[in-house]
């Protein structure tokens, strides 16, 4: 009989009106890496919150057996005492505090008088070494990248004497290189006997690290697949997740790239807004034709978002120089307003922070970038506004009972659709999509791809920034590769492969 560190039996959890989990079973063996996959809203995070005590004992039904004993966790602290640590998708680190301070936050290393700082930083660095982090423990969190921040979270978990580590979408904000490093770290920990549960949308990563994969759909366990031999079939997982066969992950499109150029950028250079001597974008020239999807590949921090935002009405950076030509006309855009009027739209990668007003309704968000279109001499025609929102809701198949729903109540995929609606309503000629499918499920991704195809079919130009190479290869006509602020390669998608893109990045690093 297998040695199960954790058995969750018949877990059922109801929210008002919704059964989030319906008799879910999960068995995790000691020392394995167990992946939990499912569409957004399938119940993965809810299940983990039940396990960690975020939803206290009594608010759900079913049994949790951990290390052979039945557990009734009432708070997060209860589960942490037993060595269960959960790392959430949104990192819970305080930017203005140091790595060491963050690591022992709420768990301070006390001396006789207050905090023992020497011990704090010494122990912090011990744990940092375990995760391969070479910075000083006194470095502030805001001064290190997201990849390293994720490592700090793991080091923090180690400091709590973790036995069962739960990672919720650990790589969603990491680039491929950092992701791979993180996954290898998990494999190392596994050799030392630690058990991990990983929630992820990225099937290739799961195929790489997981020993077993449990698929959830609509709050129920679909199946647990064995991946001990690393021979898993991605299509089988997808089928389990969506409940239907996705014959093609990228919708077919007829390529009608026009000869006309939608947008051209020449010799574009941008400096960092705070460290003004640092070049973030270095002398970049590129173009996108009408009816074309152009992809931007690169690692995190390559300067893609910065390039896009600086083009979009100088919304990022200082000392911006270069020429911008939209639809044959040279433009000098001073702010976002100017960019919108020139026919440009920038769909941010950070939909909660930079994209949507979460407390407002779908309708209000939908019209925000071009409110004047539903206004008559500055007075809003609310009826027309609602009609517009209804229209986009139908067109993009946003799942919501009404357009008066607050955007904050929608799932990630539907929020992304509202964000797209907002910028489609602005009626741009050139759309810059920054990580348009980040953190959303397979079904919603497919729908977003379809919307992009519709847009280029109408003769618009689309620039797509993505850290997922398969997505770029599947969707784009042409791919630019950036690294450290430089444009290092350009290739037609038909000739591009993941290896070629990585090679371009690595070669440029050596120079």
């Amino acid at each position, binding site marked *: 009989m297998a040695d199960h560190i954790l058995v969750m039996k018949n877990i059922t959890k109801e929210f008002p009106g919704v059964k989030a989990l319906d008799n879910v079973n999960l068995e995790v063996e000691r020392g394995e890496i167990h992946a939990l996959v499912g569409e957004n809203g399938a119940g993965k995070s809810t299940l983990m919150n039940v396990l960690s005590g975020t939803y206290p004992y009594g608010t759900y039904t079913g049994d949790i057996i951990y290390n052979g004993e039945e557990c009734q966790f009432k708070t997060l602290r209860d589960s942490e005492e037993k060595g269960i640590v959960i790392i959430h998708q949104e990192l819970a680190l305080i930017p203005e505090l140091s790595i060491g301070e963050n690591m022992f936050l709420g768990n301070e290393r006390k001396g006789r008088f207050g905090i023992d700082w020497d011990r704090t930083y010494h122990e912090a660095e011990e744990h940092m070494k375990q995760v391969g982090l070479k910075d000083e423990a006194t470095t502030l969190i805001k001064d290190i990248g997201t990849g390293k921040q994720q490592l700090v979270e793991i080091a923090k978990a180690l400091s709590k004497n973790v036995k069962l580590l739960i990672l919720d979408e650990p790589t969603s904000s990491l680039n491929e290189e950092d992701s791979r490093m993180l996954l290898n770290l998990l494999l190392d920990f596994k050799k030392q006997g630690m058990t991990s549960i990983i929630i992820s949308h990225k099937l290739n990563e799961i195929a790489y690290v997981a020993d077993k994969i449990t698929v959830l759909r609509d709050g129920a366990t679909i199946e647990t697949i064995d991946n001990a031999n690393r021979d898993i079939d991605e299509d089988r997982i997808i089928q389990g997740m969506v409940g239907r066969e996705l014959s093609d992950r990228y919708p077919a499109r007829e390529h009608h790239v026009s000869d006309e150029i939608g947008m051209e950028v020449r010799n574009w250079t941008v400096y960092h807004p705070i460290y003004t001597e640092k070049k973030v974008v270095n002398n970049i020239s590129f173009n996108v034709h009408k009816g074309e999807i152009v992809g931007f590949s690169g690692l995190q921090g390559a300067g893609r978002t910065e390039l896009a935002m600086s083009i979009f009405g100088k919304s990022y950076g200082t000392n911006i120089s270069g020429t911008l030509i939209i639809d044959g006309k040279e433009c000098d855009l001073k*702010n*976002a307003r100017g960019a919108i009027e020139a026919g440009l739209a920038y769909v941010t990668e950070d939909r909660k922070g*930079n994209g949507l007003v979460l*407390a407002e309704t779908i309708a209000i968000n939908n019209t925000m970038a071009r*409110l004047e279109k539903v206004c008559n001499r*500055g007075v809003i025609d609310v009826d027309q506004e609602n*009609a517009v929102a209804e229209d986009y809701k139908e067109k993009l198949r946003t799942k919501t009972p009404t357009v008066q729903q607050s955007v*904050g109540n929608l799932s990630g995929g539907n929020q992304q659709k509202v964000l797209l609606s907002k910028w489609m309503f602005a009626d741009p000629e050139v759309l810059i999509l920054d990580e348009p499918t980040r953190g959303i499920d397979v079904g919603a991704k497919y729908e977003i791809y379809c919307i992009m195809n519709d847009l280029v079919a109408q003769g618009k130009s689309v620039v797509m920034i993505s850290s997922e190479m398969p997505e770029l290869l599947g969707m784009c006509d042409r791919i630019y590769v950036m690294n450290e602020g430089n444009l290092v390669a350009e290739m037609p998608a038909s000739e591009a492969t993941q290896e070629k893109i990585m090679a371009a990045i690595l070669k440029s690093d050596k120079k």
Partner: protein
Amino acid sequence: MNAKTLLKKYTMVIALVVVFILFAILTGGRLLYPQNMSNLLLQNAYVLVMACGMLLCILTGGNIDLSVGSTVCLVGAVAAQLLAAGLPAIPVILLGLVIACVIGVWQGFWIGNIHIPPFICTLSGMFLFRGLGRAILGSKTVSINNQTFLNIFASYINIPGVDSGDVKWSAFAVGIIVAVGLLIFTAMNRAKKAAKGYKQASAVSEFAKIIVIDALVLAYTWKLAHYKGIPVMALWVLAVVFIYAFITSKTAFGRYFYAVGGNEKATKLSGIDTEKVYFMAYLSMSILAGLSGLLMAARIGSVNGDTGTSFEMDAIGSCFIGGASAYGGSGTVGGIMVGAILLGVINQGMSIIGLDNNWQYVVKGAVLLVAVIFDVVSNHKTGKAG
């Protein structure tokens, strides 16, 4: 709409009704005397006016303007001194408003364009303008005797013939016109929506609401008719309230305040000039504070160095009691009017009973806290922060 959501939506209105009935009983009906009903409006005119401006500031992200009480004093002081020097009323009023504008531009510039935290900037204004006002008054109380000035702000509408008797019929006539007008407006609005095929609320609920409002209008104007008629100050207040209600609910300009409070970065990337939004919030606030200064000066008939002390707190308190979010992004003019009137009724009721001034502060403080606790807790329950 079930009873629960109805209760939640109209909590403050229900609270107002309860408090009103409570004080009507405690005062042995004296609260309902025509004179007291008329005073309820006059004594709170400055709160109603300034709460509108404060709402815009609070919408941008829970930001407040601490300087308005001092602006009231400064503008009042300038007006009183100029009138005492013999200048005619109209130029003095215009000059007072220009000074308020200058103050607004001053604060709006620092807050909007230079990004000085509003709390600090307006705290500084609170000292600055109070000091200037006192200097202009020379530490004296200056009385206002200019009859035109007093007529413009603090007289009553009196139509010879109609209003010569004990009952000022013009007031009640206005009440009837407004009540009928509201009914017709609602009916026309529904017809328009029906013609375009838009969704609309059920006829019963919408007309029930209008009939309740009509009844209140008629009852209140009936009371006014039995005192001195419609105060001119009421017209000033109504004008401000209507303009601000319109701006916040119907215009693109008003929408931007909500957007900035909801998510400033997203608003900026949507091509909206967020600096201008802050600037306009503080500019409009100062202009309304200036107007309040003129209203106060005329009502009291004099200005001294303490005029307008702690007015900012009344305006801020009304907004939060009236459901404006302390984090910005939500709140309506209708809501804050209910908040302001609730505060006014409590003030007036306690004064009539003869409750000690010190205890009045205690009660006001408690009401404010309860209102904000309610706001935070109920928002949390609906999952806004969860």
